[in-house]
């Protein structure tokens, strides 16, 4: 009797683990939606930034970024809500991922704030510091999701940060390249594979 009970418990645990793996797979697929959304939004932002720089309408650069970030937060919230309706769960891993992006988001706002108020900061280094912050979020995320494609992303962003600091005049183009390499292409690959 004891043995059959133990066998049943093991079967239950195996079933739960299988379900958890399925949920994790689903969470990874859902994560791709955020990746595509933010990837496209940042690319649009970079395009607008370059355009406004050429037109010398500098105030519009800040306004444009604020608008895009607002759209990103609103659409991310809707994606999160939709995913919760589909799966019915919020895992510990997804909660940690939200906290990581929230804290790096605060860090990004501080970097932009420093560019305006700090006498000791060179505004041309904004993209380099943003790249460091994206790198740390992806570094922790690759550990949490155990996704091989993602584990290449953080070192790429960090190397990119150094390149952007050395050549700040081309940093927006490097940033766009990193977005395509680490956000758009992996997301499209996952979407195509289904």
């Amino acid at each position: 009797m004891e043995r059959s009970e133990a066998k049943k418990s093991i079967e239950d645990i195996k079933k739960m683990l299988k379900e958890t793996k399925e949920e994790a797979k689903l969470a990874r697929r859902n994560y791709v939606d955020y990746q595509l959304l933010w990837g496209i939004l940042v690319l649009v932002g970079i395009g607008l930034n370059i355009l406004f720089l050429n037109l010398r309408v500098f105030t519009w650069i800040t306004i444009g970024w604020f608008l895009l970030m607002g759209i990103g937060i609103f659409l991310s919230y809707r994606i999160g809500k939709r995913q919760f309706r589909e799966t019915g769960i919020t895992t510990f891993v997804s909660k940690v991922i939200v906290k990581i992006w929230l804290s790096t988001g605060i860090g990004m706002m501080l970097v932009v704030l420093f560019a305006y108020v700090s006498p000791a900061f060179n505004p041309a280094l904004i993209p380099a510091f943003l790249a460091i912050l994206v790198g740390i979020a992806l570094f922790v995320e690759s550990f949490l999701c155990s996704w091989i494609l993602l584990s290449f992303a953080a070192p790429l962003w960090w190397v990119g940060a150094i390149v952007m600091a050395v050549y700040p005049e081309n940093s927006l183009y490097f940033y766009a390249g990193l977005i395509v390499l680490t956000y758009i292409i992996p997301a499209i690959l996952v979407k195509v594979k289904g």
Partner: protein
Amino acid sequence: MDKIDAERSLGEIRKHLRETEEELRKTGIYAIDIQLLWGFLVLLGLGMTVLFDKLAWYKLIWIGWICIMFSGWLFGYRISKRISEATGFTSFAGRIVKAVWLGITICLTLNMIIGWFSRGRAFSLASIAMFVGIGFFVEAFVSWKEFLIAAVLYWLGAIIVGLYPKISIFVFVFLIFVTMIIPGIIVKIRFRGKEI
């Protein structure tokens, strides 16, 4: 019979959860040593920076910091080893915290490199405070909620340092004392002579 089985299983799960919570608490108390180690090392580094700056030995500032970072890594590794020997396991939460702080350390190193490339125009101490704040924020969610206060203090400190770079070292010394040294000493005194 099914109900009895279910109750027994639930009891077992609760027992395991209690044990895990207890192990996590133990790990947190042992990890105070790492916090104290880094707190004292950074204080030493800041003191050294002020001294070498006054003596105009600028190259020695970089060498000094590299030595401090290396000592921190070495002793930190030894303390981590002792913690895992004492508790007998590394939890998932513990691994997340390790990954976060490893990432933050890489960011701090990059911060130094970028500071060097930009010839000091990279608000070094403000960005360090910003990165450390991120580490404490995630740690507050994963282990102790009290770390949230430390995160907010570091971010506020980052803004003050960004606005007034001349007082950055004093702000940083204050932050180290309030968020690392004092809480570390309080925990040490509370558990001195007691079996954890």
